[in-house]
């Protein structure tokens, strides 16, 4: 979904988009799980990024497959 360097801002924007879509009833039930999963991923990623050292960031990004 996100391109290369996922930033906090992008993550937040994506999450907001999901919210907006949800609020606009744009998401079918089938997509819903996918979207919520994505939301959880984004938050997890951000949480870990916030707590990781400079060295760990690269590894983390790779590990999460979000890059």
């Amino acid at each position: 979904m996100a391109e290369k360097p996922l930033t906090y801002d992008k993550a937040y924007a994506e999450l907001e988009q999901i919210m907006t879509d949800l609020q606009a009833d744009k998401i079918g039930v089938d997509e819903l799980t996918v979207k919520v999963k994505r939301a959880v991923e984004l938050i997890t990623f951000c949480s870990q990024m916030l707590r990781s050292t400079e060295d760990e960031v690269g590894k983390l990004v790779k590990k999460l497959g979000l890059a």
Partner: protein
Amino acid sequence: MDERRVFTLSQVSTAIKQRIEEATGGQAYWIRAEIAGLKVKNHAYLELVEHKGGQKVAVMRAHIWNSAYQRIRSELGAEADNILKDGVEVLLLGRVDFHLVHGLSINIEALDLAFNIGEMERRKLATIRALKEDGLYNRNRFAPMPMVLQRIALVASVGSAAYADFMQHLQHNERGYRFHVRVFGSAVQGDGAAAELRAAVGAIDPRLFDALVLVRGGGSKLDLEPFNDLELARLVAAFPKPVLTGIGHDVDTSVLDLIAKEPHKTPTAVADFLVDKASGFEIALTSMLDKVHGLVLEDFSMRRETLSAYAEMVRTRPVNHCQLQRGRLHTATGQLAHRVQAKLHTEGQVLENHRARLTTDPLRWLQQVKRAGLEELSIKLGLVANKQLQLVALQLKGLRETVNLLGPQATLARGFSITRAQGQAITDAGNLRPGERITTTLAKGTVHSTVESIEQHG
């Protein structure tokens, strides 16, 4: 040469001293001048200088007696060292003092602190004006603020309390956030601080950082001077990432505070801000997830309601539909019997109608039309036959009359007569002979006579 009046040096000095005292009347004057060559040994000795266009236009010695010096220092408070130093322009209250041995000197009795501060404010305003003219004043405030500031370029005096406080607060936050801080060391006060600060800021590659943080521990008012530096301010204002200041002054704000994206009072406050921002971000994310979850639950519960409404419809509608159909069938059944009966009834009535007509019409027809016709014919027959017979009778009567008219009898009646001889009717006298017997028939009666003579006519 005898007229020559010779004075002793002391006479001259005394005369000058008298003249000066006469002129000044021992009065003190407010004098504006720059401090130079300040030396303090018990008393303070210095030179007062006035520059104009880079040139000294006046120099005078001055001194501050120890008691006055102590008083002035305490009056200046924190600013004493910022003001009582070479190169600072001050407004002083002094008396012109001419000492026979030491010569002319200004005895400084007081310094006007407000003058210096005012000067600093004036320079600050000039800096602001210059920044505004360059279009830089608001520049950094428009720098985009990321949601999290994690990679920090820190400009501080390494080892200072401010630095330590900042690092301490940032790295040991409760939530365990990691910040990636690179320090660009610089003096933050005193002569040369501005230059060092400029160098430090200039060395930062903005692409590698989320924010530039400038911190300094507490200090006097005039200690802020380096942070009002125009060149430094230009660099900072033009910095493409947000600039955070924690320059640490309770009352006053430096130019950098004014142009920074995020001015804070203290380094600690800056650190807290960064931590709070990260935490706020994380909370926002989490609450967003909660909202997402909430929306999902809400959405699902609405869907469930719809589904159960549908289930209800599935339960009732078909049954209703069947009932409706059953009702229609029932109606059709009733109508079927009714319509068939109506149909049969109508047919029966039509038949009845025919039956009624059949019982009357032919007889009526026979009697009225046929019999009456016959009777009429009978009457007509009598009439026509009689008429015919009467006509014939009339005809006969006419004939009878005509016969009577044409018969000889009628002619005889008019006087004519028929003469016969030997039974033959005589129409020519020549056929008779005299003496011949003839009979003449008249209308009434017959005459027998004898011919006497004959006359021929025609």
